[in-house]
């Protein structure tokens, strides 16, 4: 049976990782800080996927973002999606070459249909995550700064017509609040979405993750909350979700020491 997923989203801006609240960013630390407080080789075992988003405002600094991505994902054996500011095939190629298994598109969905279709053709639907930033009755692009005059169901239709693989639905109002997902919004749209659905914005604790995953058509819950899930927060949350009967994948972390360098020195 297909399992549900827990995803952690990292918000990157000009070399730093950020806590976002209603899309306003608060600098938390650089990659060294992240390594100290979120040792990815360890916490990755509490996650099903990782998403890394580049929210740098003016100059996206794609090359430096790609380099950080590449450092971040060493020894992490889960799928990585990366995005933010992808405007060309070259941008996408750079992220794929630096450890991304999927790319996340947002503004391009609205402003460059040709690019999206080309990316789907080259990398396949399953490599493309379409991110929708929602507030009130509106959809936004460009890191939440530009409002689109299109209603959500039309926008979903527009996106699914381009054959993207998954939809990442983020609530700007709930983002970073820790008050829980926008359940009303999600319940309203799940019936309209025929792609796998990831919900984001608002999760502050494990009960919110459970609440999200209990909605039938929700395939994955994402949280970007660096403060609320610090240390062993994610490990604890995953345990609580298992206990609550949420259908999540299982693996035995105790097997790991037996696998590390197993061929070293005796693989001739």
């Amino acid at each position, binding site marked *: 049976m297909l399992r549900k997923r827990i995803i952690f989203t990292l918000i990157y801006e000009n070399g730093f990782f950020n806590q976002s609240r209603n899309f306003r960013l608060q600098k938390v630390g650089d990659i060294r800080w992240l390594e100290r407080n979120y040792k990815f080789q360890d916490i990755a075992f509490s996650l099903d996927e990782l998403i890394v988003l580049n929210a740098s405002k003016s100059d996206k600094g794609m090359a430096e973002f790609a380099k950080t991505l590449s450092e971040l994902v060493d020894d992490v*054996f889960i799928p990585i999606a990366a995005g933010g500011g992808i405007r060309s095939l070259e941008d996408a190629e750079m992220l794929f070459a630096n450890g991304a298994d999927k790319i996340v598109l947002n503004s391009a969905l609205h402003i460059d249909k040709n690019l999206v279709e080309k990316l789907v053709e080259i990398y396949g639907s399953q490599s493309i995550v379409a991110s929708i930033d929602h507030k009130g009755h509106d959809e936004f692009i460009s890191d939440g700064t530009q409002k689109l005059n299109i209603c959500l169901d039309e926008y979903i239709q527009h996106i699914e017509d381009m054959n993207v693989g998954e939809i990442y639905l983020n609530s700007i109002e709930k983002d970073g609040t820790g008050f829980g997902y926008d359940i009303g919004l999600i319940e309203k749209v799940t019936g309209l979405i025929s792609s796998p659905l990831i919900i984001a914005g608002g999760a502050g604790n494990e009960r919110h993750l459970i609440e999200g995953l209990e909605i039938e058509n929700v395939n994955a819950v994402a949280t970007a909350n660096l403060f609320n899930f610090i240390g062993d927060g994610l490990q604890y949350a995953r345990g609580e979700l298992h206990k609550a009967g949420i259908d999540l994948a299982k693996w035995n972390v105790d*097997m790991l020491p037996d696998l*590390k360098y197993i061929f070293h020195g005796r693989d001739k």
Partner: protein
Amino acid sequence: MRVVIVDYNMGNIKSITSALKYLGISEIIVSNQGAEILSADKLILPGVGSFAKAMVNIKNLKLDKYLEEAVMKESKPILGICLGMQLMCESSEEDGLTDGLGFVTGKVERFSSDGLKVPHVGFNQVCFEDNSRLYHDMVNMSDFYFTHSFKMQSDARINQAYCDYGSEFIASYEVSNIAGAQFHPELSQINGLKLIGNFLKSF
């Protein structure tokens, strides 16, 4: 051990390289050169994206000939991952009917999307036979990470393991020196590392 990852410009090779390093493989080579392929102890055929485009790339690089020689004549062990697993079949109906490498009996078809979300994305359980080499020392119905819109079917006996999404499809096969996995072991946490280790040990 010299492990050659066959590079034909389709997909993320970094995570496979990273998994092999973690397991302590001394020589990891990413190449599209015939000589390198023929010098390998074990081969990995990765890939994501379009079947038809992959076959064009493979033929342009003459990799079909080198793989045929290495895998079918010299019996070098090979693990196909995701699209790589599908490419070793006879054909796929992706983008019209395209011939594959034909090392393994089976065909690739689209998921019927009747009430089913396609692509099939996420961890799903794999049901395997006790005597499987790929899943040696693993618990049946272990979880692996899938992400694909096409699936493989075969009537032949290719020691298939199964996954269920809407209906059963082939999650992996193992025929003498040839193995294929529809899922991504390199993205499947500890279960995937274990499976790659099993391939390198027992094929």
